């Protein structure tokens, strides 16, 4: 038997190797870029503590650069909006995912899936603008304040993380083998019992991942939050009082601080904090996902 493929095999092999190198180089490049960002941000950020005490920065409530650098209001603001967003967005998102995965008729699902995906792609400035035009006056009118603050920012963030939470938890729910559901039904369980006692526990790692990713999105969101939070460096005493977040503070001040100044370094340190928080969340997800097993 002749082997007509034999000659070209050598060529293909060379091509194989070439593409192998291309992929390796891209992988190295990407890692390098990410690593450099982390190193750069850390290097700038950590210089802050040449001028200001570590505790003063984290626990001080007085933000009056270039004299005082108490960043606690921003830290609390970031935690506050994130908490609100998750508390409001996660249950809604999970409910939506359950509806889409298990209750909606196929045609409704076919419509809702692309719609949720579309929501992910809306630029945050659009969300922010809509919030600014509708949500802020709505709240201001009913409460008598200005409307800016944790409440509006949290509500808007909840809406913004919804698609992330929905699409990831829907995938997790749909990945649960159908035979588990069948087993439950065959024992005389109702649909709700099956959903709450079999489906959700089985999909739990995926659902937790969805919520954590939502959280990561919320804590890192900048533009929409900056438009709604009020940007006042004070600890909010109520949901309706204007305050600020790490992200909002960075974006509003980065342009007017000379590179290398304490103020500028402090902003880099805030960025480093955000970076570490999201890295921590990603690692957390890896940890959670590892537990996912359906078959022994």
């Amino acid at each position: 038997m002749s082997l007509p493929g034999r000659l070209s095999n050598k060529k293909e092999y060379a091509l194989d190797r070439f593409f192998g190198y291309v992929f390796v180089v891209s992988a190295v490049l990407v890692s390098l870029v990410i690593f450099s960002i982390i190193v750069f941000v850390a290097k700038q950020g950590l210089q802050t503590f040449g001028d200001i005490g570590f505790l003063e920065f984290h626990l001080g409530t007085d933000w009056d650069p270039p004299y005082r650098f108490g960043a606690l209001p921003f830290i609390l603001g970031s935690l506050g909006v994130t908490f609100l967003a998750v508390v409001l967005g996660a249950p809604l998102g999970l409910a939506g995912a359950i509806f889409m995965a298990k209750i909606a008729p196929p045609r409704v699902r076919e419509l809702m899936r692309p719609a949720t995906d579309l929501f992910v792609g809306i630029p945050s400035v659009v969300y922010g603008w809509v919030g600014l035009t509708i949500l802020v006056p709505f709240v201001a009118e009913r409460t008598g304040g200005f409307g800016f603050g944790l409440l509006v920012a949290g509500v808007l963030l909840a809406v913004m993380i919804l698609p992330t939470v929905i699409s990831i938890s829907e995938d997790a729910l749909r990945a649960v083998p159908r035979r588990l559901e069948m087993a439950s039904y065959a024992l005389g369980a109702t649909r709700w019992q099956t959903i709450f006692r079999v489906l959700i526990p089985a999909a739990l790692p995926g659902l937790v991942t969805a919520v954590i990713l939502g959280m990561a999105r919320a804590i890192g969101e900048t533009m929409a939050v900056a438009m709604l939070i009020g940007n006042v460096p004070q600890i909010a005493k109520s949901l309706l009082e204007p305050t600020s977040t790490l992200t909002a503070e960075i974006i509003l001040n980065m342009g007017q601080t000379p590179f290398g100044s304490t103020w500028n370094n402090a902003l880099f340190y805030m960025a480093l904090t955000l970076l570490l928080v999201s890295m921590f969340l990603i690692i957390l997800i890896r940890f959670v996902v590892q537990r996912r097993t359906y078959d022994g």
Partner: protein
Amino acid sequence: MANKITVRNLNLFYGDTQALREVDLDIEQQQISALIGPSGCGKSTFLRVLNRMNDLIEGVRVDGQVLLDDEDVHGPEVDVVHLRKRVGMVFQRPNPFPMSVYDNVAYGPRIHGLKNKRRLDEIVENSLRDAALWEEVHDRLFRSALGLSGGQQQRLCIARLLAVEPEVLLMDEPSSALDPISTLKIEELLQELKKNYTIVIVTHNMQQAARVSDVTAFFLNGEIVESGKTDTLFTRPKDKRTEDYITGRFG
């Protein structure tokens, strides 16, 4: 002996395709009825009619009569949840829930409202004993059921079913995914269980049908070609097609 389930003129359609044609079958109390036939002959579909698991599949339409103790399972007043409590099912592939052995068995009683811890403990132990699994798992009740072997998992699924005290056990090729020793254990178990339960088993394995069942029905292309006492059907089949199938000429 009394009929537990009586099926008359049963037709079933998946959309436009007819999967069961004019099926008549009597399933007797405390007997093991085996359904045999080649792949796609409708035997599993038939099994799912008996506890209305077909309701969960889109586009399935059924007509005809399926009586469970003289009550039509498709009747308007039938509560399908209650029906499935009475007519339970074991599946082809073991499907324990990703939870502990204990929680798997306690699942049924719990969803039917039992909270008493002592009573639950009792049911779990008895069900596992009845499924011939207690000795193997009593020291690991609170560890994940997914750590059990395939055969153990299948017996766990049977225990889980027994815990809801059904009257009829439907088994869809319960040992086809298991090794010979596990299969033997399941078959021995069936002989024990038949003292208290009516059992309907779908099997691909004709030796298994011959070994375990009292009555056999041979399905082909959605129809029952022949049904009757297992001994008779396997030794003196009336229909040529039955003979061809059991002698391994097709299927």
